[in-house]
């Protein structure tokens, strides 16, 4: 029985945690919230210098050639720090998409630049508040040009390239295409969101030059595959954020006195914190299995990814909201740090589509497995 990360992976986790505690304190996150900056360039540069943007990029393309398990431990620490960087969009989504579905030329062109941090990439799927499906994707790719609107696109205001989910006119099917976001025919508008520590934009493509990517023949299935990978990785960010929220609530419950005693000695608070812990452990266990399936490219990946997503979203949403509740009035102030996890929990929880949808997907996969 070896259902745990390796010693090397745990060492990497500590290294990332150390870097983030030195360079990405909650004040750094606050600075992004209160300024016009889209992200922390300093933290991002540091992650690039550690080689982390190239974690799973093969060595032949200038990456570290490590497994998704290494990405999982990195993700957990980024979530714990609520780091204001484009890691999830550039690394979990766009890089994985290019690795899986890029043409040889696209891989040669983009992967080394992603590994070295020369470019930041993003992944654009939704176009409005309507849940995306193969029939309502309006962005069209035709004769090397992309037209349509994507929103919200994470880190869309400043990303260099974008992997967009498109309707390919040539084959009249769903596909993915890569766009250089500095080319002509692109209009970007930064959006106001719940979490201004993570940039989101609306991007309008108007006959913008674009290159279509490879497809397995089932373009929508390809998109789902990328979402499944990201679901597992983001679940680790959620776990990190949930643990940070629980820890913050615990510290406050020990410090704060009411009616002559620590509020952490009241069962109403104890049970609330115990429930946070329970949800976090259930999420962690589901995500460990997700990580294992991701690493083995196992047959249960789809189910495990959905389970990781459902459990981790529940854990982070609950921990972030009950952290504020534990703090009482002070937790609702701008000065309090509780807001960063409260904001981030929704951004991560909604980033890959509604949980109602993931639950349905989970049961559909279970039905297929048992038929």
């Amino acid at each position: 029985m070896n259902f745990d990360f390796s010693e090397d992976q745990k060492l990497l986790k500590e290294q990332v945690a150390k870097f983030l505690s030195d360079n990405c304190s909650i004040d750094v996150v606050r600075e992004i919230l209160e300024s016009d900056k889209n992200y922390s360039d300093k933290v991002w540069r540091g992650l690039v210098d550690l080689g982390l943007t190239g974690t799973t990029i093969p060595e032949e393309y200038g990456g570290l050639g490590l497994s998704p398990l290494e990405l999982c431990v990195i993700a957990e620490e980024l979530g714990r720090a609520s780091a204001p960087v484009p890691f999830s969009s550039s690394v979990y989504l766009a890089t994985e998409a290019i690795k899986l579905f890029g043409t040889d030329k696209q891989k040669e062109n983009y992967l080394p630049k992603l590994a070295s941090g020369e470019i930041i990439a993003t992944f654009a799927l939704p176009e409005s508040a309507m849940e995306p499906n193969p029939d309502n994707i309006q962005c069209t790719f035709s004769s090397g040009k992309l037209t349509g609107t994507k929103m919200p696109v994470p880190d869309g205001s400043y990303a260099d390239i974008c992997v967009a989910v498109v309707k390919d006119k040539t084959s009249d099917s769903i596909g993915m295409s890569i766009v250089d976001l500095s080319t002509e025919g692109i209009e970007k508008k930064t959006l106001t969101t719940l979490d201004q520590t993570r940039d989101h934009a609306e991007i309008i493509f108007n006959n913008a030059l674009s290159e279509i990517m490879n497809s397995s023949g089932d373009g929508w299935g390809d998109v789902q595959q990328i979402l499944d990978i990201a679901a597992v990785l983001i679940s680790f960010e959620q776990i990190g954020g949930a643990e940070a929220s629980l820890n913050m609530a615990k510290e406050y419950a020990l410090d704060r006195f009411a009616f002559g005693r620590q509020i952490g000695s009241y069962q109403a608070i104890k049970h609330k914190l115990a429930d946070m812990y329970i949800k976090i452990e259930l999420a962690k266990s589901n995500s460990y299995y997700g990580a294992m399936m991701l690493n083995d490219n196992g047959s249960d990946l789809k189910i495990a990814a959905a389970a990781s997503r459902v459990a981790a979203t529940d854990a982070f949403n609950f921990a972030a909201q009950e952290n504020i509740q534990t703090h009482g009035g002070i937790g609702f102030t701008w000065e309090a740090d509780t807001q960063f996890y409260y904001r981030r929990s929704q951004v991560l929880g909604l980033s890959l589509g509604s949980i109602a949808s993931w639950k349905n997907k989970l049961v559909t996969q279970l039905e297929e497995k048992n038929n």
Partner: protein
Amino acid sequence: MDFNDTPEENNFRSEVRDWLKNNAPKEKKAGGYDSIDVQESALSRARDWQAKKAEAGYAAITWPKEYGGLGGSSIQSVIYSQEESKYNVPTGFFDIGLGMCIPTMMAWATKEQNERYVEPALYGKEIWCQLFSEPSAGSDVAGVRTKAEKDGDDWIINGQKVWTSGAHFCDFGIIVVRTDPTVPKHKGLSFFFLDMKSPGIEIKPIRQISGGSNFNEVFFTDVRVPDTQRLGEVGEGWKVALTTLMNERLAIGVPKSADYSSLTQLAKDVILNNKPAIKNDHVRAKIADWYVQSEGLKYTKMRSLTSLSKGETPGPESSIGKVVSAPKMQDLASFAMDLQGAAGILNDPDMSLMHSIFQNQWMSAAGYRIAGGTDEILRNIVAERVLGLPQDIRVDKNVPFNELADSR
């Protein structure tokens, strides 16, 4: 990351498999949910099987060899249980004795006493029970009122214990009693083991809301116990009781119950809003929620087993099992009955869907949320021991027991 055995674990598993193949009864494991009311024939089969296991060293894998154990590791014990669970062998009669009572004896009794009592318990010849809970002492078990008074070289016990599993077929018991009511609660307790056939012990089965009877009330009227059967010093019974309670957390679990897969099965068979319930989004979301909880517990166990496999103590995550699974048993059963509409009230295995498994589960779950630590106590334990939050203020802490507010 994998679920594979190490080579040593794999060797042990093969040994166990071979032994079980040659020694375990051949009948298929019965499906469904048997009543656990005790039957003489089951007890006699259980004794035979226990003796066979003890002979081979598998009855107490982690115990030292001097006590008849295998001197093995916790992971070996888990491997044995995994393999044994594939066979229809009678279990359950010795869990409390070997899981809680005898380990307490080993820690506190004399060498001679252990030589006398450990082996017959291990071989299933003598069965032990635990006499802690009382009508006025449940979660607050240190509040026991059953008293023992010194009389020469003996103690005379008077009072009542409750929720004693198996008292009616047990040979010996361990008991915590009050020997000094004039000092604060925890300081006036002493601990004994006693012969359950002693004069003055009366055992009455408790009928549970499920209709079954798995527990007893035990009444003590002038029951004489020699002082030589005291474990620990007079007034230090709580210290001894903690040895037992630490083992309880390992021994008490929740039985395998109808889960998301049974619910999925049911949802295919019943109609909701003119279509099979499985097509209903709300039903699907509930199935997903319980799937995630079940899998979460399953993989939490794998994480704990990984620690055991490395020879480490499992982390605190192992403490969440019952507080998740017992309420899940109840909620899932309740939801499954709701899907059956008015017919959900049927509790006749011949009439109700899926042989009443959900109805029976709903009934028994109410007990599992209490047994071996209520949901509330388990949350306190997580908050205090895992998260390090302070204990609740105790108004009874420095007050003599006989001056405490009385609940009736």
